[in-house]
C-alpha cells in the first residue's frame, strides 16, 4: 500500500500484493478494496478504483491537517495508517554568482553559486533533489528517431554541496565531484537539533536548465525515504559486504508500504540568464 499526500495534488493510492523474491510474476493488484480517508477523524472521502491497483480521490489535502486511512479487503486484516501534512518550506537564495574555469586564453562558465536559507517555524525534514532538462538529446541530426526534438528531463543522481545540516547516511566519496563526494539521489537536511531554526548552506554547482526541488516530509515519509535509499545503496554496491540488509520503514498496520505526506517547494533555473 502506497500513498503519499501532497497539498498540490489530488489523492492517489496503489494497492497490490507483495511477491516472493524468487518470483518473476507481475504484482497482483487489489481492485476490490474499500478505501476510506478521514481528515481530522471526519470521513473526508472514499477512494475509487480507477486502474489496476490504483485508487483516486479528486481532492487536495491541506497543510497541517491529520489524515487517517482505513482499508478493508475481503479476507484480509483491516489496514490503517495516518499522517499529518507538513508545512511548506520557505526557500530563499541569494543572487547567483558565476564560477568560471580559467584557461590561458579564455574562461568558461563552470557553474553558479548561491547561498540558501530554508526556514519553517517547526521541525524541518527537508529533502533536496534536482531535475535537469536537455533538448534534442537523442540525436538532433537524425529526424527519423522518434522524440528527437523533445525535451528530456533527467534526475540528477548525485548532488554535491557542503552543508553542516546534511545527513551523511548516503554520502559517498567520489573524485568526479569537486568536493570529493556526493549524496546519492537526495540530500537530507534537518534542523531537529533546534526546531524552528533556519538551515543555511551554499551550493556551488547550480547550472542552467535545472529545477531545484525541496520537499518537507512528515515523520513517516522521512523515515521511509531514508530506509529506501539505504536499501538501494546496499543493492547497488553489492561489492561492499559490510552492510546488512535494511528493512524498509512502514507505518501501516497490517500491510507494508507508506502512508506519508510531503509538501514541495522549488527554484526554477531553467531559464536563468547568467552574465558570462
Amino acid at each position, binding site marked *: 500500500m502506497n500513498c503519499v499526500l501532497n497539498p498540490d495534488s489530488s489523492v492517489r493510492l496503489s494497492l497490490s500484493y507483495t511477491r516472493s523474491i524468487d518470483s518473476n510474476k507481475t504484482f497482483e493488484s487489489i481492485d476490490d478494496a474499500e478505501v476510506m480517508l478521514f481528515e481530522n477523524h471526519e470521513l473526508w472521502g472514499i477512494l475509487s478504483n480507477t486502474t489496476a491497483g490504483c485508487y483516486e480521490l479528486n481532492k487536495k489535502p491541506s497543510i497541517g491537517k491529520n489524515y487517517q486511512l482505513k482499508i478493508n479487503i475481503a479476507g484480509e486484516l483491516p489496514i490503517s495508517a495516518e499522517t499529518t501534512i507538513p508545512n511548506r518550506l520557505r526557500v530563499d537564495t541569494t543572487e547567483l554568482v558565476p564560477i568560471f574555469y580559467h584557461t590561458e586564453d579564455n574562461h568558461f562558465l563552470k557553474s553558479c553559486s548561491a547561498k540558501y536559507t530554508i526556514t519553517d517555524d517547526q521541525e524541518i525534514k527537508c529533502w533536496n*533533489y534536482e531535475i535537469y532538462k536537455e533538448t534534442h538529446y537523442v540525436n538532433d541530426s537524425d529526424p527519423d528517431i522518434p522524440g528527437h526534438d523533445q525535451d528530456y528531463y533527467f534526475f540528477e543522481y548525485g548532488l554535491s554541496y557542503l552543508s553542516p545540516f546534511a545527513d551523511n547516511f548516503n554520502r559517498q566519496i567520489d573524485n568526479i565531484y569537486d568536493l570529493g563526494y556526493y549524496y546519492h539521489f537526495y540530500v537530507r537536511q534537518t534542523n531537529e537539533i533546534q526546531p524552528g531554526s533556519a538551515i543555511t548552506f551554499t551550493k556551488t554547482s547550480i547550472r542552467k536548465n535545472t529545477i531545484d526541488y525541496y520537499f518537507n516530509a512528515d515523520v513517516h515519509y522521512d523515515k521511509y525515504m531514508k530506509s529506501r535509499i539505504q536499501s538501494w545503496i546496499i543493492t547497488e554496491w553489492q561489492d561492499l559486504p559490510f552492510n546488512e540488509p535494511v528493512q524498509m520503514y512502514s507505518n501501516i498496520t497490517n500491510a507494508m*508500504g507508506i502512508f506519508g505526506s510531503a509538501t514541495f517547494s522549488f527554484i526554477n533555473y531553467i531559464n536563468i540568464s547568467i552574465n558570462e
Partner: protein
Amino acid sequence: MNKWIASLILLLFTTSLQAQRHVTGYVQDAQSAERLVGANVFDPQSRKGVTTNSFGFFSLNALTDSCRLQIQHIGYKTQNICIKLNIDTMLVISLQPGISLDEVAVFGENPQGNHEFSNLNHTQLNRNQITSFPAFLGETDVTKALQYQPGVSAGRENSAGFNVRGGGADQNLILLDGAPVYNMYHAMGFFSTFNSYAIKDASLYKGGIPARYGGRLSSVLDVTAREGNMRDFEGVVSVSPISAQASIEAPIKQDTASFLLSFRRSYLDLLLRSILKLANNESQFGYLLYDLNAKTNWIVNDKNRLYLSFYSGRDTQYYNYAYKDDNFEADNDFHWGNYTGIIRWNHIFNSKLFANLSAYGSYFENQTTTTIDDDGEFVKFQSRSNLKDFSLKSDFEYQHSANYSLQFGSLVSALQFAPGITSSKTKDNNNTLNDNNKTNAIIAELYAENKFNFKTLFLNVGGRISNYNHEGSSEWSFQPRLSAILKLQNKLSISASYMQMEQYLHLLSSSSMGMPSDLWIGSSNRVKPETSQQVSLGVEKNIWSNIKFGIESYYKKSENVIRFKQGMGFSDGSEIYWEDAVVPGKGRSYGLELYAQKTTGRFTGMVSYTLSKSEQLFDGLNNAEWFPFKFDRTHDFSINGKYQLRAPEGKMRNLSFGFVLQSGNYYSIPDIEQKNSQLPGMENVGYFDSNWWDDYFSTDKNYVNPNNFQMPLFHHLDLGYESTKQLKKGRSRTWNFSIYNVYNRQNPWTYYKREGQFMQLSIFPIIPSASYIFRW
C-alpha cells in the same frame, strides 16, 4: 536460614581461632621476573589453594607450622616448596618456563585447576597459548583463540568480535590492564586491537562473573599486558603479510623497575603510496592501522609497586587528490581509534590485606574530515563522535582466615558521550553544530565478594551496587552474584552460579562486524539500562590424569536490550535522536556446553560442543513473537590442537590445527518484493529503457520478519606449522606457516539477488600465509 548463617559464622570463628600463619607473596617467571596471573598455589595437606590475582599476588592461610606448597601455572614447571611458618611469611616464588614433555601428568594432587571458577565459566589463556592457534594472514589473535571455547562464537567469519552464550558483542566488557576498551577492532573487525606480543594473559568470564566486574551483560575479557623483563634486555620483531611488529622490554633497574614498548603497524598504505607515486598519480588512497602498547612498573619496596600503562590503537582510511594545474586539493580522511592510560598502585597493608588503586582514562573516537582547498578557497568539514571515560577504581583483598576472604572495592566513572558533532570551517567562519549533543553520565559502584573456602566447597557470594546518573536522572541497581564449586571424590566437581548484570551503555550498530561507526550511547530516561540474569550448572571431571571433561548448562534472560526499529538504521554516527530509532525488547538464551581438554604432554588440545538457542522479542516486530537472535548458533562444534614434533636440540617444531563446524548465521534477508510508489523526481525522467527505470525505482526488496534466513553450515579447517631455532646469545628465529580454510570452503558472507538469481558472496577462500619472528 538463620541457623545456617549461624553455623557458618561459628565455623569461620572456630577456624580463625586455630593457630594460623599467613603465607603471602607473588608468583613470577624465573627468567624475566614478570608476575604470573592465575597461578595455583595449593596446600596439599589442607587441600586448600588460591589463585594469584592479576598482579601475581596470593595470600594463603596455613594451619600448621610447616607447610608444603605446590605451585602450578600452564607453561611452567610445577614447583613444590616446604617452609617453616613461625611467623607470617612473604614469598616470591619463581617458576621455570617449560614442561617436561616426556612426563605425562603434572597435575599432582590438585586436579581441579582454578579454585574459584569452573573451567566452563572461566577461561584463561597466556601468550604461548594464544600464539599456538593457526594464524590468519600471519596474525594470531586472542579473541579468535577464545572463539574455540564452548559458548563463544564469532559474529561473522573471521571477525575478531565474539558472542558469548547468545549475547551481542556489545555485551562483552573488554579490559586492558583494567581499563575498558570501547572498540577493540581493527580493519572493519577482522583483527582485534590486541597485539599478541604485548599480551601476558587473557581471562574470559562467561558465567558466574564475580562482583568485581560489572557493566556488561554477557562476559568479561580481562587482558593483562606484559610488564617488561626485570632482568634482561629482550626484544622481538615479526613480519606478517599485513603488518610488522616490534617489541622491546628491559629492566630500568635490575629487579626493581622495567618497561615494555610494543608497536605494530600495517604497511598496505606504504606499498600503495609507492605504487601511486611511480604511476605519477596525483591521488593518494590507502588504509593503515597501528597499535602502541607501553608499560612500565616500579617495585618501590616490598609493599608497594606502581604500574603505568598506555595503549593507543588507530585505523585510518584516506583518499586525497589534487589537480595542481587548477590549484585544487581535496583530502578525505576517516579515522577511528582507542586510547587508554592507567596508573595503578599495589599496596600490601599487611599479610592479610592487599590493595590496588587505579586511575584511568579511556577514549574512543571516530572522525571524518573533508578538506578542500580550491584556489585559495578553503573549506573544512568534520563529523566526529567520541566517548570519554575517566575513572577511579579501588580493589581490596582481605584474607581473614583459611576459610574466608573478602574482596571489595569501588569504581567511579565520569563518561561523556559526543555522538555526531559536526563542524565546518572556512577562511571567515568556524561553526560547530550540535555541540549540545554531548551528554554526561556518572557511574558509581561498590562491590564485595565473600569467598568461603572449605575443604570440598568453594563459595563466592557477593554483589555489586551501582548508581547511574545521567543528565539529572538517577538509576540504582543491586546485582547479586553467586558461584559455588563442590569437589567430590574421584576428581569430580560440580559447579553452580547465578549472576545478575546491569549495562548502562548501549551500542548503536547496524552491523555484526564491529564497525568503526559503532557508537556507545548512555542509557536515558527513555531507553533504560539493559539487565540480565543467568544461572548455570556444570560438572567437571578429570578423566585421566591429563584430560579434563566438562559439561554445563545455562539459562540467561535479559531485559531492555535494544534494536533498531523497522526501517531505521545507523550509518555514520550522526543519528541525533537515537532514542527514536531504537526499540527495547527482551532476550533469552539457553544451552548446553561440553568440552574435553588435554593440557599437558606433547599433544595438547580441546574439543568443544555447544547446543544452544538465543532469541529476542520486541513489540511491533514479528507480531511480538520470539525470533532467533542473529548470533544464535544451535550447534557449535570445534576442535583445536597442537602437537610438538620431536626436533634436534635447539630447535622446536609445532603443528597446529583448528576446525570449526557451526550452524549458519541468522540473517535478515529480503524475501519479498513490494511495489512502491516512485520517489519524488523519479517519475517520467527515464530515457534509455523506461521499463527498467520504472522497475528499478518502484520495486523494492524487503523482509517482514527479522533474521528470517539461516545460512548453511559454516565450517573451515586451519593448519599451522611453526619452527623455532635457537641461535647464539639467547636469540631465536621462528617461521610460522599457516593455511586458513584448507579445503577452500565457500562459507557465505552475505546473499543478494542479481538478474533474478540469488547469489552467495564468500570472501575468505583458502588463504596461505607466512610470518617471521626474530627474538633476542
